[in-house]
């Protein structure tokens, strides 16, 4: 006996209309979203040229993606709605087994889209990977070679401006920054505005990942390796970020803040830091000396007591 397999058309239509409405609503939201909402759909940017380049590359891919998404969902939903079984309609669908030209067509089409994406990626890669020339002169620099990744050294900018190089060391659960004059700080990094900052990333316990979203991509700090990242902030202000690689129970609290300040302010900061560190070091050395003297005195007394 024949099962009554064909449902009345009423049962499926409203749901599909709802589905269509949801998709349409999402699209309207996407297209009509004001500039203020732009970062809802795109990565953070605006802090550094590499972040801006990533943002531009992402947007191009996103537009291609939206077109593909619409084609796939559109044909899928259209097929479901249009070819639903109707009461009294045909028992069977069209007995089509395939269509070689069509299948070859979408294979080649998909491959072509990816070729385009590859070309676009290479167009933007340089701006993202290679540090921009620094805008300000008279900053300390070291022109070391890096063995582990091939981020080139930034070119010398106008007026012989050199990049600022900072060692960033990840530890459970803080970042330690060493400035060119030997001063160091924790959690908060202070850098001058309009200067290319090259970061040499290392880790002394587990893997951490350096990430300030507005300054572009993240880079892992892996024990035993030196990784590199760079940014060039064009405006002063505070930029927040945090460790992006699970590093233990304090991972979520391993935050980082970059203070971008005027150049004079930066010079004052590292000088003051250096002085503070030296004073503290001298203080510590003095205390240690005193304690050692006291200890040896005590030990000497003890030894005398024991001898007696």
């Amino acid at each position, binding site marked *: 006996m024949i099962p009554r397999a064909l449902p009345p058309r009423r049962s499926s239509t409203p749901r599909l209309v709802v589905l269509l409405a949801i998709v349409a609503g999402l699209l309207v939201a996407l297209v009509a979203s004001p500039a203020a909402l732009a970062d809802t759909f795109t990565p953070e940017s605006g802090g550094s040229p590499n972040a801006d380049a990533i943002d531009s590359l992402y947007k191009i891919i996103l537009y291609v993606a939206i077109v593909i998404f619409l084609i796939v969902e559109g044909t899928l939903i259209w097929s479901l709605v249009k070819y639903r079984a109707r009461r009294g309609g045909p028992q069977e*669908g069209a007995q089509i087994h395939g269509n070689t030209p069509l299948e070859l067509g979408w294979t080649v089409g998909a491959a072509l889209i990816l070729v385009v994406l590859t070309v676009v990626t290479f167009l933007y890669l340089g701006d993202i990977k290679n540090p921009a020339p620094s805008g300000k002169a008279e900053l300390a620099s070291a022109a070391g070679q890096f063995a582990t990744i091939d981020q080139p050294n930034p070119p010398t900018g106008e007026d012989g401006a050199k990049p600022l190089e900072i060692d960033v060391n990840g530890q459970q659960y803080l970042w330690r920054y060493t400035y060119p004059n030997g001063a160091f700080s924790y959690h908060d990094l202070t850098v001058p505005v309009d200067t290319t900052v090259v970061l040499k990333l290392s880790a002394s316990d587990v893997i951490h990942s350096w*990430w300030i979203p507005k300054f572009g*991509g993240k880079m892992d700090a892996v024990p035993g390796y030196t990784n590199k990242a760079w940014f060039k902030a064009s405006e002063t202000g505070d930029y927040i970020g945090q460790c992006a690689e699970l590093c233990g129970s304090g991972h979520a609290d391993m935050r980082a803040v970059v203070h971008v300040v005027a150049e004079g302010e930066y010079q004052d900061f590292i000088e003051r830091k250096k002085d503070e560190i030296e004073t503290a070091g001298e203080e510590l050395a003095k205390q240690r000396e005193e304690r050692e003297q006291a200890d040896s005195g005590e030990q000497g007394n003890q030894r005398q007591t024991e001898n007696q």
Partner: protein
Amino acid sequence: MATNDAAARPAGLNGALAPEVTMHGLQDEPKGWLAWLTTTDHKKIGIMYFVATFVFFILGGVEALIMRAQLAQPSSTLVSPETYNGLVSMHGTTMIFLFVVPVMAAFGNYLVPLMIGARDMAFPRLNALSLWLLVFGGIAFYASLFFEPPQAGWTSYTPLSDDAYMPGGGIDAWIFLIHLTGLSSLVGAINFVATIHNMRAPGMSWGRMPLFVWSILVYSYLLIAALPTIAAAVTMLLADRHFGTAFFDPVGGGDPMLWQHMFWFFGHPEVYIMILPAFGIISEILPVFSRKPIFGYKAIAAATVAIAFLGLLVWAHHMFTTPTSTVVLIFFMLSSFAIAVPTGIKIFNWIATLWKGSIVFKTPLYFAAALPALFVVGGISGVMLAVFPVDWQLHDTYFVVAHLHYVLFGGSVFGIFAGVYFWFPKMTGRMMSEGLGKLSFWVMFVGFNLTFLVQHSAGLSGMPRRIYDYDAALGVSDYNLISTIGSFLLGIGVLLTVINALRSYRHGKLAGNDPWKGNTLEWFVQSPPPANNFDVVPRVRSVEPMKDIRREIAKTTGTPAGSVAQPVGSAGW
């Protein structure tokens, strides 16, 4: 049963007596629960696989909901950071190693012999072994709840997972889980390969094999290719932790990057291990409910093989932010791009299968049609992540969490649910409730998208993954609240299907042999199938043998055939 009655012996050539078959020590089949514990029947093993994996699915789901509850608002103190990292690790490990991978083996165990016209798997005892290894792997892992769960994520990156930073036994429990479930999958995979290569029904050439069986064959080869590497890696980690070696410890001259390469050399094929059988499931379901042959059978089978091959060459796209030279990053970007092509082919073929069909809207179709609709989102975000300069922004953020759930939940789990609704009548003899099923689908569909769509935006706004707390200043609080509400809706949706299955098992409508007018041989036998599956194995003439059988019956009897399965106790058809 042996007999000494000469008259009953079959006569051989020339009227001579045929060689006598005598059986010694034949024992009665055990009854009750013992029958389940000692069984080597692929159907019983398959059902136990389903029960075990769904128990783990629910455990993993509860872990996820606790995490979502913690993240509903900033500065929440529902769980401690240590507990949260434990939940992260348990959830990921459970869903991957104890649910999605083995539930595919559950479908494979139950269906492969039935679909290819075999009476059991090639090695029934190995089959039982792989089930029990899985169960004990899960128990060994969950035992860590009683001392200290692992806290290094499902990836257990070194040096964090080394004894210096995770001295507790949780990581060791994780290592034993990998070994036990790995052995389970390996044994199962060899069994599938042997079965599929050797035990297909007469006439079932490679070009007539059901697409689900193709996907299980490729799943098995991928497991065999990928699992030895992770087995080696976790053994090295065990030695690092307890025997003083330093494979991954930079202090002793080892290299933490080696772990990542070994892990992802396994870990990325694992992704395809989890999705390809789901693709196979909907490649069976879509044609049945659109009353049409699958569009481009050969292209789908070939794409399955191509995805598997390419899947072995993309592992370092998980490592774009590590210290690695650019030329390597470019290679892995291009190889990851390449996978999009065969995947796209499949999606277009499924849509073309629906096109010009006469689509019957039953619950399995809802879930099956949702797979391409949701998977395409994950596929597109996957291409975005493959562009390594863009990945530098997106890596290790909630964008990745959203991406992986669109492929793993929107893809694999919706496919699994489609399969459960489709084959439940075959396994139990009873239909699941359509009303409850469709309700469950819509609650899951809405809940799923609420949960994971906004997570893309959370990641783009700067929220890293695997954090127990976030700063209100980050501007992701709304996204997280929406996501949490969605996740509980999703949980309710899943629960509805579980209730549906439990109720239908006792009270469902009787299914009959072939309730959906299926295409493949499992619909030829009774529901549930008899112990020997087939009294007589039909000859296979096309990729849709049941359609041929129905047509033949219509021709000989002059009436259209409804249900044509083998008659109970028949001597043959």
